[in-house]
């Protein structure tokens, strides 16, 4: 079985070290805006959760690419082949999870490739909110987010 990134939202402190590590691995710069794992606030910035590509079975990005520039790498991750990518952005709108991005400097698509099997975000997380395990991928954040947003929505409605 291949390994996946397991996200444990209840452990996330919102420190953003995963974003720094990811952006450095993916783009060579400490540039959280270019991270492909993104930490989002919930419940009025009192809780946080990381969010990234699930490496879904369909691979909407991969099947959408008109030039075969997205493949499956040794880690089992959908991975963009830079030399093949023309920057048409079709993968970014085909992905229904919002986890394929476009680099405005290189004019290429990019996404989580599990760092080829040694994901930097999991290493960087000081609270083990991101782990790399042999498991089936799943919706790691849904229950957490439903609970945390319910309170905020009730306040809004009041």
């Amino acid at each position, binding site marked *: 079985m291949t390994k996946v990134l397991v996200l444990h939202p209840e452990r996330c402190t919102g420190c953003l070290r995963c974003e720094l590590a990811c952006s450095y691995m993916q783009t060579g710069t400490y540039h959280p805006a270019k991270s492909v794992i993104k930490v*989002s606030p*919930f419940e009025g910035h009192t809780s946080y959760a990381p969010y990234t590509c699930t490496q879904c079975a369909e691979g909407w990005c991969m099947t959408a690419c008109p030039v075969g520039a997205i493949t499956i790498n040794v880690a089992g991750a959908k991975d963009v082949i830079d030399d093949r990518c023309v920057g048409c952005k079709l993968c970014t709108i085909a992905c229904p999870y919002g986890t394929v991005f476009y680099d405005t400097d290189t004019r290429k698509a990019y996404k989580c490739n599990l760092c080829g099997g040694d994901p930097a975000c999991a290493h960087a997380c000081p609270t083990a909110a991101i782990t790399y395990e042999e498991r089936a991928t799943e919706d790691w954040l849904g229950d957490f987010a439903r609970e945390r947003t319910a309170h905020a929505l009730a306040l809004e409605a009041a």
Partner: protein
Amino acid sequence: MPRRHLIVGGGTAAVNAIRTIREEETEKSEITLVTAERPYSRMVLPYYLDRSIAEGHVFTATAPGLAQWDVKAHVGRRASRLDVKANVCTLDDGTTIEYDDCLVATGSSAVRAPVPGADGRNVHSFWTLDEARGLIASLSPGAQVVMVGAGFISFTILNSILSHGVALTVVELAPHILPRMIDATAAGLVEKWLTDHGVTIRTDARLTAIEDAKGKKRLRFARGADLTADVVIMATGIKANVEWLQGSGITVKQGIVVDDHLRSSVPNVYAAGDVAEGRDLISGNGAVHAIETTAQEHGRVVGANMAGRDVRYRGSLIINIVEVCHLDVASFGAWDDTKAAAITGLRPERPAYRKLLWSGDRLTGAIILGPSSDIWTTNDVGMLKGLVQSGVSLAPFRAHLERNPFDIKPAYVAAKTTAVLLPETVLGRPSKAPGETPVAV
């Protein structure tokens, strides 16, 4: 005797069908391909036009690739007649091909505005590779270029044209640009953005003639001043390539009418891509979606069914994205449903715009607009697609999104959209990487 598949057309739908047949079949079949052009991807032609890729990059199936798939290819030939009773296709050189089943994937062609001079010298279309070659050869720095039509095709090549250092004017018949992709509010923002970036936009402009004038082109309009140009580009629409099927008995409306297995009215003749009128995912009605992702999904479903599987297709979702001068604009699904309840958010100073369209608690369409530097630091583009595609209930969030239509992510995550989407695949199994197609022996 091996099963004989005939694929007519060599675009995205056809190549996806061929690959999927080889992925799915349990016994090796015979595949024959008839294509007027070498197979290439239309989607990437704008990047050939702006010279960021070489011409060789556009091809999706080369001669060695087709040989590896063991496809008997008739390249440079067109199908001229289909006899659905005898199961025989006749080509333009008189060759006849017998088949057990056939895929019609003959695509679409550019249509020019029906005005005098539309076919004259230095008037170009941009749809095929040949047309792209012709346009590249005609563009030189400082040239005056007029693009007729401000639709999706026009906007996919706008950056590429500007990259040649030309002066560009875009004229549009409708009251606003991109009339079949975004609403008037979004169009107003794009028009202002383009004007600020030196592009001249003229809407409500009905072209009446293109004349030759001292080595240049003169464009005349029903109202307003003439325009002068060195090069004219006609981006005035496309039509399905179905004329050759007249008299075949196959039912054609806007395109070839297909069922949920992408079979035409003749059960062993399938249709896919720009030429097919299949199910729209949102409305459930028949529609021609002349976009890349529909051609890919159609092609894969047909390939699986031709290989003997029983794959039902849910329907295709309209998704469009264009970037002009670092402003990204995307729309999804039933963005233009005037009867749907709509929530909008506008921040003209960025600019940023959102429109969410609803059927009850579910999103049926969306528009998103913003500078590239904003858009690509959020997950929103794909998440909007996921919300429309999955149709998850957003009931608890509707009031919140009404207050802030920019705050998509908490609603997306808490609605457990990911859990709904994860089991979903087009072919009922994980997709294979391109280039990993086993060739049955």
